[in-house]
């Protein structure tokens, strides 16, 4: 057992999932499937999730792109805004897809009412230190071109970044190939582990804002 896996510390907040939804959709004759789920937080939400064609025996992460030779054979994305979460999958036509989506709201919205997530199984707390629960070090909003300094960045375990492409508070995980949708690649965050900083690049002039979450 690794003591660093122990959760019961209040030094850092545990990642709290603010919403969780699941459902089913089928790709059309063009191989496109999309769902829209409304929420009533009134603030932007930052979604992520998985989808599956075999009842979650295996799954794909929303934001995954697969190249087959010179073409993209699988593409998926997810976006959240102040009212909705929209998921999008492109793959083989007439394929039934199940999806599970969850996400967060910014800590700056700390007074937002968050209903119980309602996952009957996963909600049960396990005081078991064999599992490593990501611990949120910091989160925040950055504008394109910003440099954000994070003490101890080299010790981070993982991070997530969502991009607001049009400055209208609609956020997608930065991993979802958004640059491609907007005509070029290049919207990304560069983590400088030596200088303890994050540079939010915008090579194609598309993304306006970024929301980031840093974990230990």
């Amino acid at each position, binding site marked *: 057992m690794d003591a660093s896996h122990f959760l019961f510390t*209040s030094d850092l*907040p545990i*990642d*709290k*999932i*603010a919403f*969780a939804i*699941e459902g089913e959709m089928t790709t059309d004759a063009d191989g496109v499937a999309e769902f829209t789920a409304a929420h009533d937080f009134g603030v932007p939400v930052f979604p992520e*999730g*998985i989808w*599956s064609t075999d009842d*979650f*025996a*295996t*799954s*794909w*992460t929303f*934001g*995954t*792109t*697969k*190249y087959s*030779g*010179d073409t993209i054979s699988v593409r998926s994305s997810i976006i959240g805004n102040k009212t909705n979460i929209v998921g999008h999958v492109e793959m083989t036509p007439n394929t039934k897809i199940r999806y*599970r989506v*969850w996400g967060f709201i910014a800590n700056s*919205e700390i*007074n*937002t*009412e*968050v209903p119980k*997530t309602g*996952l009957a*199984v*996963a*909600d*049960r*707390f396990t005081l078991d230190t064999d599992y*490593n*629960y*990501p611990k949120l070090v910091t989160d925040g909003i950055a504008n394109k071109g910003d440099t954000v300094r994070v003490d101890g960045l080299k010790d981070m*375990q*993982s*991070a*997530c970044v969502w991009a607001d492409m049009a400055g209208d508070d609609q956020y997608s*995980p930065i*991993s*979802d*190939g958004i*640059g*491609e949708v907007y005509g070029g*690649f290049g919207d*990304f*965050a*560069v*983590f*400088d*582990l*030596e200088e303890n900083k994050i540079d939010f690049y915008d*090579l194609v002039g598309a993304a306006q804002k970024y929301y980031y979450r840093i974990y230990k």
Partner: protein
Amino acid sequence: MKLERFILNSDYATLRSKASMRLTIAVPSTITIPYGSPNAVYSAEAEIPGSASTFFRAMWGYSGRGGVDMSHLRLIGSNVAIAARQDGNEAQAQGTVFCENGKYYAQIIFPGSSFSDTTWTDVGGIYTVDIQTFLDPFRAN
């Protein structure tokens, strides 16, 4: 209930880490793609035990040059743009990570052209991908 309240009340789900793995891809410094040929794809793959149906996050690292100095830096995302030079001009290749049928793949794609030969330069180096998987929060284990 407010967000700042401690999660130990079990009203909320959280993410639970499952496993992590690093893949590495070696790319030569110069890549020439004859016109009409498929894209040049460099890849690595691995199974991550118990992670056939998990959510993952990926971060890229790059030891080489590639248009800007990215030494010791990490790019975030399963898809990343890779600054490089195509026939002498700054251009971008793409890296992607996906999981299919339980196996994780990292690919770096250097596009070719159907009209002329394509040469990518200053792309060489070791590309690393750190993949971290998480338990699907809808599952117990």
